């Protein structure tokens, strides 16, 4: 069980109604997204989302360590 801070941006933040939250999680990042998607009703399937951990892009199969900062990155629209 790892305690991680999850950051939300754009439509994910609107759906979660918060910028971030602390979550106790076991398993990989994909499982974490699935869990939080169900909790908050995120519209975006995991195929359209990228994940970052501690400020760098990460792999969905990575398992977060305790204290990690995880960010879900919905499709970007800068420029």
């Amino acid at each position, binding site marked *: 069980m790892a305690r991680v801070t999850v950051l939300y941006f*754009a439509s994910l933040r609107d759906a979660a109604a918060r910028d971030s939250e602390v979550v106790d999680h076991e398993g990989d990042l994909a499982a974490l997204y699935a869990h939080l998607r169900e909790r908050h009703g995120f519209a975006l399937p995991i195929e359209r989302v990228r994940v970052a951990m501690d400020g760098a892009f990460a792999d969905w199969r990575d398992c977060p360590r305790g204290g990690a900062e995880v960010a879900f990155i919905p499709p*970007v629209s*800068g*420029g």
Partner: protein
Amino acid sequence: MARFAIADDAFDIAPLRAGLLRAEAGAYASFEGWVRNHNDGRAATGLRYESYRALAEAEGERILDEALARFPIADAACVHRIGDLAVGDLAVWVGVSAAHRDAAFAACRWIIDEVKSRVPIWKHERYAEGDAQWLHPSSP
């Protein structure tokens, strides 16, 4: 020095352009993205950009490093605005200096394409009808 920056407020292009001048560079290409009054057929009144700043800065810097490795250019830089913008405001600027124009144009185009597809910045668009939405485009 960082070649990529996130700007919270309107920024001046002139000093950024001047920073790319090189005696050996004969060509300079630049791109600017301006807030339009329409998108996907809807009248837009303005927008808000937000970023995951730490990752956006790191990813932007990586894009410029890659451009310098891929193209025979002298230097390159990019600044992206975040916050509230009105129609006509400057949203993003890219500048590239090079000995020749082929590389300047190619690198400038490549950089703006990569920034748009990779840097964690999101656009929240407001419409004339009063509604607003986050844009999460499908990959091309």
